[in-house]
């Protein structure tokens, strides 16, 4: 019999004990975060004092990103957990270095107020041998989320009123976006995409060594109409595209690098020819033709819901019209 099965039995026994205990759980179970197992239920981590209400346990800190990834308009509730006695390290404007034992928790929800329905909670666990990404699917009763390694589909109505078949990614697909140089890494919590106040608070909680000095931040998405279009668009591309489109990531072979810090015009797509776009080219020759969003592959692919054409390839099934608008305006104002 495999070691995994033995471990499973052991955990099953523990679970029996947990159900006897008063619930909801009120503290994070560090062994669930750091251990070798893949807990079957989200509740085993103890991230939430009240999970259906998304009230975090002590030590689990909510955060937001200045400009987030578009996920069919889902509301996303983000939390970070750094275990007791440990401190994350700021690394300039880049990703916070979260110590082993940390977790990032992101719940996807649709609907407002009492009509809010939790769809899935994705967790990233920093274990001794690296980060592990797992998707948990909420049950119909909204009382528990269960590990869904193969992902799943369910109908949801987006904020724009579209009824779609929402895709919960499978465990491998988590890695398609979170993979960098063969390892799983977080994407979101980069200092440049977090507010100064939040970073100060996190330092105040004793969870971050320092709030880094930043020359420029990714702007708040709500303020995209009033900030310089270059910052709004590059911030959007950074958070929606660059996790794949950078060296060492899933779309590295395209040669397109949409990271915030990349300034080479060809690398970000200006007069760059496609490599493996196929019909994703839409008949256009270049990723970006300055001044001409209608003739740019970037906007063509962002504007398509069709698999094989649509970008990003995973994590959404509708067009982000607001994001597309920002990128179109950015290309349109480029000098021809």
């Amino acid at each position: 019999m495999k070691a995994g099965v033995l471990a499973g039995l052991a955990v099953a026994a523990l679970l029996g004990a947990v159900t006897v205990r008063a619930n909801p759980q009120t503290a994070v179970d560090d062994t669930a975060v750091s251990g070798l197992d893949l807990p079957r239920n989200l509740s085993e981590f103890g991230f939430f004092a009240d999970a259906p209400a998304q009230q975090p346990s002590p030590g689990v800190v909510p955060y937001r990103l200045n400009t987030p990834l578009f996920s069919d308009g889902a509301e996303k509730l983000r939390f970070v957990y750094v275990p007791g006695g440990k401190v994350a390290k700021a690394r300039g404007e880049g990703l916070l270095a979260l110590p082993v034992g940390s977790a990032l928790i992101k719940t996807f929800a649709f609907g407002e107020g009492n009509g809010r329905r939790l769809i899935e909670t994705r967790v990233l666990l920093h274990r001794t041998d690296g980060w592990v990404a797992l998707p948990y699917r909420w049950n119909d009763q909204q009382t528990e989320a269960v590990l869904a390694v193969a992902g799943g589909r369910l109908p949801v109505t987006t904020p724009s009123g579209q009824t779609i078949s929402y895709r919960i990614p499978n465990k491998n697909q988590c890695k398609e976006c979170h993979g960098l140089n063969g390892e799983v890494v977080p994407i979101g919590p980069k200092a440049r995409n977090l507010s100064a106040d939040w970073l100060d608070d996190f330092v105040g909680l004793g969870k971050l060594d320092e709030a880094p000095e930043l020359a420029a931040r990714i702007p708040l998405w709500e303020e995209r109409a009033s900030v310089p279009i270059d910052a709004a668009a590059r911030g959007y591309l950074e958070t929606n595209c660059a996790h794949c489109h950078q060296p060492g990531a899933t779309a590295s072979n395209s040669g397109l690098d949409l990271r915030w810090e990349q300034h080479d015009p060809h690398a970000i797509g200006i007069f760059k020819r496609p490599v493996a776009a196929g019909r994703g080219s839409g008949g256009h020759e270049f990723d970006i033709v300055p001044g001409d969003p209608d003739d740019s592959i970037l906007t063509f692919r962002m504007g398509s819901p069709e698999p094989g054409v649509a970008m990003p390839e995973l994590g959404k099934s509708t067009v982000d019209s607001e994001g597309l608008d920002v990128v179109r305006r950015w290309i349109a104002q480029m000098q021809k």
Partner: protein
Amino acid sequence: MIRTVISTLALLSASSLAAATHEVAAGAGAQERLQEALILAEPGDEIVLGAGRFAISDGLSLDVDNVTVRGAGMEATVLDFTGQRDAGEGLLVTSDGVTLRNFALENPKGDGIKSKGADDIVYHRIRVTWTNGPAATNGAYGIYPVESTGILVDACEVSGASDAGIYVGQSKKITVRDSIATDNVAGIEIENSRDAIVERNFVTRNTGGILVFDLPGLPVMGGGNVILKQNLVVGNKTANFAPPGNIVAGVRRGTGIMVMANEKVWISDNIVRDNPTASFIIAAYTKPFDDARYNPFPREVVIAENDVDEGSTDPQLDGAEQLLAGFGGALPPIMWDGLNQDKDNPALLATPEISSWTLNLTRQGQPLAEAQPGPGDLPAYGQPWEFGEIGAPERLFDRI
């Protein structure tokens, strides 16, 4: 090693520490069962697909080393992606030492099987088919290994790809053999890759048969050291159906074997007939580029003994009628753009048995309208260079 505790682990419980076999039958829930097996497999395990059609609506992926995925045959086991709703390919492989054999994919929305950063991969008796025939709406690549070292594509079949049927990109140590590529824009393409052997393939009804390209602006460049031998490259005259913008959209209908940029490509013992633009096209990269790492010229392409027809009688070239008249009714089998990197690095050497013509271009990127076509006079080749470790590593052949 991460061990799982979820209920599906019961799949594994009967086995010892030795490699396990996970059987996945077609039918209800097949996609979820297959994807779970692909995730829960441990190195050394085998996933066995039953006969039948598997309706797949989402991209599949494998990220565990040394796993074999085996079907009941390339006609018997079909992963049907006609209803695919997400992902850029049908199956994505991102782990090393994987063997894929004896199954088919039909109608993936994007690429068929993509293996990226997946070293030592074997594709054996894999079929990828777009069942409606050539169409710009078909996916780009059928079999698509990229950024990998150690690739064996053996006895596979691809048809209908709107770019290349079998496409190997930015990789090293490659063998593509005994495979059939039909009704694609490019039958087989080796791009920005080194140490490749393409042999004994049947390549027909594509726009272009076999392409060996090197392109600028990619993470991996410097393609070369390629052998093309004993391929049957005939009747590639399907009108180009690639979506514009892609590099292969510029391939002329009726191209047999084409080499663009690249160093050291040895072409021998192929049968290259009934490709009405040219049996062979050897050319520099045609477009402007801004990449100091890139060499746009072919260097030391050798066309040795090959079986060719008298020439090409229906070329897809501007001024075709005048050209045909000028060459007595048929263009010589070898078409060269006339560009060399420099005097010491000739682009092309060839057997005197096969005649040639040249566009006599004088600079990279020069418009074809400025060509001064004339008969070619190519230098003879000598002994082959030392190929070194070329082709897929020996250990991959042991897995088929």
